[in-house]
Structures are given as structure tokens and as C-alpha cells.
């Protein structure tokens, strides 16, 4: 990541995102923001806080509830060389604009034989944990990582939120930037303290495609993304007291995927737990299994463990929702199980 010497202060992930967007908007008139309630409201999950006041309605544009039209418009503007940052309020709403996202935003560069770039960021909120039920709680990164043409970026902390957003806007490719509501540091939602952290004031980037070893360890590898990184770090701290050394690999992006980081860690520990707030089957945990199985299945000293949403829609009632989410309890239990 780019070195930086500017002072840091503790800010939320939401503020960090908005700050990165503001910096890019100051640098270039080509950068603008559109989406539902991104203007005076500042984004339902705070991703555009302050931008309307600084840049006004011409550059921070509230849209009608027409995701196909405004995501498509983002594509058109990007094709013409602008750098739109478009918000899809919840990733769960992908279905009303999936064609623009996966048949157009993702494919134009390839279809054109490289003649046309689509330098656009689509940012969207993911995640469960506050009883928003089946249509407002999904993660869905596995869905987008399966379909070629989009970079899929998933920050887990304020520093990465800022640095990855800067990289995403500067990227000449379409980037899907998925932020977890529960990791935004919002005042009105329960949060892990890791959602507020030291972030440099000035410009910096975090490269897209490099996993972070969020914590080093020797016994068990946890591969994960997003809010589950925070949970996994909590568990790692807890289990350190029991003498279990957990390595936490924060993938940070699924496309490109840092296969080496996963293989290196598993080569070291021989034990793999994938923690994934997305649905279990045909997703992230499968892909992790495959990169090991096609490289060297003997890396695994134990059967791997998958902790993910067990292929059910997200239920509403708290007792049901927490039954299917990868909570710290379940993470800890899975690690212990791998060590037993």
C-alpha cells in the first residue's frame, strides 16, 4: 500500500469511504456520485456523508428508484471517460439491475476487445445481524465473484475502506465495492470497536488483489472477508488465551483473488476454516477448497470447516437469524473443533 505521512485520526469506516470519494472528486471533475439518498441524506449507510455539502447537487445526485436506469447511466458515463461512483443501496436489490451490472458493466471491456473501458465504482451495502430479513441482509459476494468482469472489493476496516475506495475509483475497470453495514461504524447500529480506527487524513491507496494477514498464527487458518474478519480477530484473541494460534487471512478482494496468501497460510497451519456471511454452497468456501484441492490436497491435515449461511434465506426473528450467522461463538467452536 502507498506510504503516507499525513496525520491520522480515529474515524468510522463510513467516514473513511466518504473521505476517499471526496479526495478523488477534488482531483477530477470526472468523478461524481449518484444513487438513492446519497445527497442531503448522505447515504443510508453514511457512505456519502458530507459530499453533498461540499460538491452540490450536480456532482452528488439523488436518483429515482430506477436502478437499471441509473446504474446503466453510470456505465454510459464511464464509457465516455467519466468516473462515476454509483450506490446500489443494498446489494439485495441487485436483482432489479443485474443485467446492467453483469451483462454490461462487467462485459463491455471484454466484448469490445479491450477498446472500451468502464472505469466505474458500484458500491453497495451487505450483511445481516439486525433483523432486516430475507431481502435486506444478504452478502452475495460469491454471486459476483463467480461472474467475470468485475473486480470485487470488500473492506473490513476503516483504513482499507478508504484505501480500497481510492484504488477502486482510480481503477480503469468496473469495481464492485461491498461494505458491511455492521462494519460501517454507524451510530445507530451495534458495532465492533474495529469499525472505528486510525486512518490517515491524506490520500493513500490499498492495492486491489492483495489479501492482508490480519493476524499471524500457526495452528489454524481462518480465511474470511468483511465483518467476519472483525469477528475472527476477536476469536483469535480469545483463543490465544487457550494456547491456540489463529492466523486470520482477510482476502479484501475476491476478484482478483490472492490465491498465494491462502495457500501459504494453509501450507503453514494445515487447518482451514472459511468464515463467510454469504450462502454456503457454490461460494467462497468452495473456491478456497478448490484452490487447495487443485494445488495440493495434502496441505490439509484435517478436513476443512465451512462456516457460512447454511443455504437458507436470512430469517427475521433474532433467534433464527443468529442461528444461521457466523457468530464469534460458532467461529470459536469451529476452530476448537479443528484443533481437537
Amino acid at each position, binding site marked *: 500500500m502507498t506510504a503516507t505521512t499525513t496525520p491520522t485520526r480515529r474515524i468510522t469506516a463510513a467516514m473513511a469511504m466518504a473521505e476517499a470519494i471526496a479526495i478523488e472528486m477534488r482531483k477530477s471533475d470526472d468523478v461524481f456520485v449518484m444513487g*438513492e*439518498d446519497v*445527497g*442531503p*441524506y448522505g447515504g*443510508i449507510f453514511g457512505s456519502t456523508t458530507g459530499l453533498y455539502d461540499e460538491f452540490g447537487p450536480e456532482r452528488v445526485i*439523488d*436518483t*429515482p*428508484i*430506477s*436502478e*437499471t436506469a441509473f446504474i446503466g447511466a453510470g456505465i454510459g458515463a464511464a464509457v465516455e471517460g467519466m468516473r462515476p461512483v454509483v450506490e446500489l443501496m443494498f446489494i*439485495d*436489490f441487485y*436483482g*432489479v439491475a443485474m443485467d446492467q451490472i453483469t451483462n454490461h458493466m462487467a462485459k463491455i471491456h471484454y466484448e469490445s476487445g479491450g477498446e472500451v473501458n468502464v472505469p466505474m465504482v458500484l458500491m453497495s451495502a451487505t450483511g445481516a*445481524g*439486525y*433483523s*432486516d*430479513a*430475507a*431481502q*435486506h441482509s444478504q452478502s452475495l459476494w460469491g454471486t459476483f465473484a463467480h461472474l467475470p468482469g468485475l473486480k470485487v472489493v470488500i473492506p473490513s476496516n476503516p483504513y482499507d475502506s478508504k484505501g480500497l475506495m481510492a484504488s477502486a475509483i482510480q481503477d480503469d475497470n468496473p469495481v464492485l465495492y461491498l461494505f458491511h453495514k455492521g462494519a460501517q461504524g454507524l*451510530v*445507530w*447500529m*451495534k458495532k465492533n470497536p474495529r469499525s472505528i480506527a486510525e486512518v490517515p487524513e491524506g490520500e493513500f491507496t490499498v492495492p486491489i488483489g492483495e489479501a492482508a494477514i490480519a493476524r499471524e498464527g500457526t495452528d489454524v487458518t481462518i480465511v474470511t472477508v468483511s465483518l467476519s474478519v472483525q469477528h475472527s480477530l476477536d476469536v483469535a484473541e480469545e483463543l490465544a488465551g487457550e494456547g491456540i494460534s489463529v492466523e486470520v487471512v482477510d482476502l479484501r478482494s475476491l476478484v482478483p483473488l490472492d490465491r498465494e496468501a491462502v495457500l501459504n497460510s494453509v501450507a503453514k497451519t494445515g487447518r482451514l476454516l472459511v468464515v463467510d456471511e454469504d450462502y454456503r454452497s457454490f461460494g467462497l468456501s468452495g473456491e478456497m477448497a478448490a484452490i487447495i484441492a487443485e494445488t495440493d490436497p495434502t496441505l490439509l491435515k484435517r478436513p476443512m470447516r465451512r462456516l457460512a449461511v*447454511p*443455504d*437458507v*434465506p436470512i*430469517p*427475521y*426473528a*433474532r*433467534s*433464527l*437469524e*443468529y*442461528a*444461521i450467522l457466523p457468530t464469534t461463538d460458532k467461529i470459536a467452536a469451529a476452530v476448537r473443533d479443528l484443533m481437537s
Partner: protein
Amino acid sequence: MTTPDRADLYAGMVRIRKFEARILQEYHADKSPAWDIGAGLIPGEMHLSAGQEPVAVGVSAHLTADDAITATHRPHHFALAHGVDMKRLAAEIYGRTTGLCHGKGGHMHLFDPSHHFSCSGIIGQGYPVACGQAMAMKRRGTDHVAVAVAGEGAANQGAFHESLNLAALWNLPVVFVIEDNDWAISVPRSHSTATPSNADRAAGYGMPGVRVEHNDPDAVLEAAGAAVARARRGEGPSLLEVHTVRLWGHFEGDAQAYRGAELETLDERDPIPAYEARLLETGELTPERVEEISAAATAEVDEAIEFARDSPVPPPEDALRDVFA
């Protein structure tokens, strides 16, 4: 269907408002001191309908339990007006086993097949489903109708267009209702919709379109009556837009800074006191009747909330059930 008593429409509105007011209170009760959306007896997003009661009672007065309604993320007023059981509705909002969906659905995903009632948290997406319910009703030779509800914000979603075209083309018994409460979260109608009246859009599908400018049960009753009757006669769909008002936030917790001075005018725009005054004047209501209606509604709401609170929380293992029949 005989024209409903105006006092009944009034009572229907009071009943809804009391329910919503109680949910409001219950929702906020245990989210302090640090307000946490996921905490308390009622967690999650909460979109309440205060101010929009005239639409629900005016439309539903023409329906029976055999007719369908697809409602929105803001569904309680239509559910109650259509006859969905208040106890099971409350229990669902509390996420209990006795709820309409046994705690799996929640406030944006209410299903009551006995009233052909459903709703969805995805904007505009009840419109297509209502078309299909209407197809079934028509194919089976009944005179039932399907009512599809959306907000004025939703009327700019592709599903709106496709559904109106389909219903008109196939002459389906659907009444498309748009609740224009001027706002889609923080986005005013002027920033979302390129026409002052969605009724104008109906012409593009060759169907009648009416905009009711007054947030008044009588006006809604009349316009909806024509639309429902037309559908029942097999003459096809209609569009009905009602200019209503959202008295509270988009969802609970919404500070509504974006509404500015409008916030101060909201009390005057409450449709219930206005209607009450009118009916008192005509003698259709008396102060005693008003009291009775209020007391009955309070009692019903109390009972429903009590039922919900006393009902069991679903056991965790239920989460794995019901993916497939």
C-alpha cells in the same frame, strides 16, 4: 357490495393508527440509551403508515378476503384494512412463532394466504405478482380482483411499466394503486418523477388513470370503487394514484432533516381528525361513538400486542426449515 358506512371507514383508520402508534412506541421503547436498530423487542427496519390510512380503508372497503393485495415495505395499513388478523400481524412483527410467518418474514414480508395478502421489501415488485394472482382469478372464472400497491417512488421502477402493460394487454382484473406521499425516503417527488401525475401514465397502456388529490377516505372510496367494479366486470385494469401524506419518518429513526419546514405542517395534514370533524358535523359520528371506536381499537391493539409479547420466540433450529415444501 354495498357502500360502507363512513363511520366504519373512520373506525378502520383509527384502528390502523392506534396499531401503528403502539408499534412506534414498542419499537423505540427498548432501543435506548444508544439507539440500536437491531435491539429490543421489535428489531429491524420499521416503516409505519401514519397518514396513509385513507388509501388503505378506501380501497379495501371494496374487497373481500377472496381478493388479493400485494403491499409494500410499508404494509400494515393495507394488511389491517384487508382483514389480516391483528394478533398474528403483531406477532410477526415481534418475530414470534404465532406470527403470520412464524417469525421468518418480519414486517416487510407478511403473508396471509387466507386473505391473499402479501408484501415485499423490494420496490415495485408486488406489481407483477398481483398480475399473476389476477391471471389465476380470471382463469378460474371468478370475479375476484388483485390490488397492487406501490409508492410514488416505486412508480419509476421498471416493474411498474411492465406490469401495467401486461395487465392491460391481457385485460387482467388488477387495480394498481400508487400512494403518493411526496417522498421516497429523502428524495422528493420532484426529484424522482418526470410527471406531476402518474395517472397520465395510464394512457400509455390504454387504461383509465385517476389521481385523487385529497387524502380523504371518501374520495379514495369513490375512485377505487370504479376501478374495482371495472375489474370485477372483466373490463380490465385501472391505475389509481392518491396524494397522501407520510406523517412520520420513512423508517423509524429517520430524523427527517431533509423535510425542513414541511415538518411543521404535518399535524394539519393528518387525515383522521379532519374526517372525524366532518362526520361529527354530519352526525354520522357522535362524540360517544368516537369514544367507543377509540376504546375498541385500543383494546384490540392491546390484546394483539399482548398476544405477540406472550408468544414464544422461534427455536433456533427452525431456521433450517421451510426452504422447500
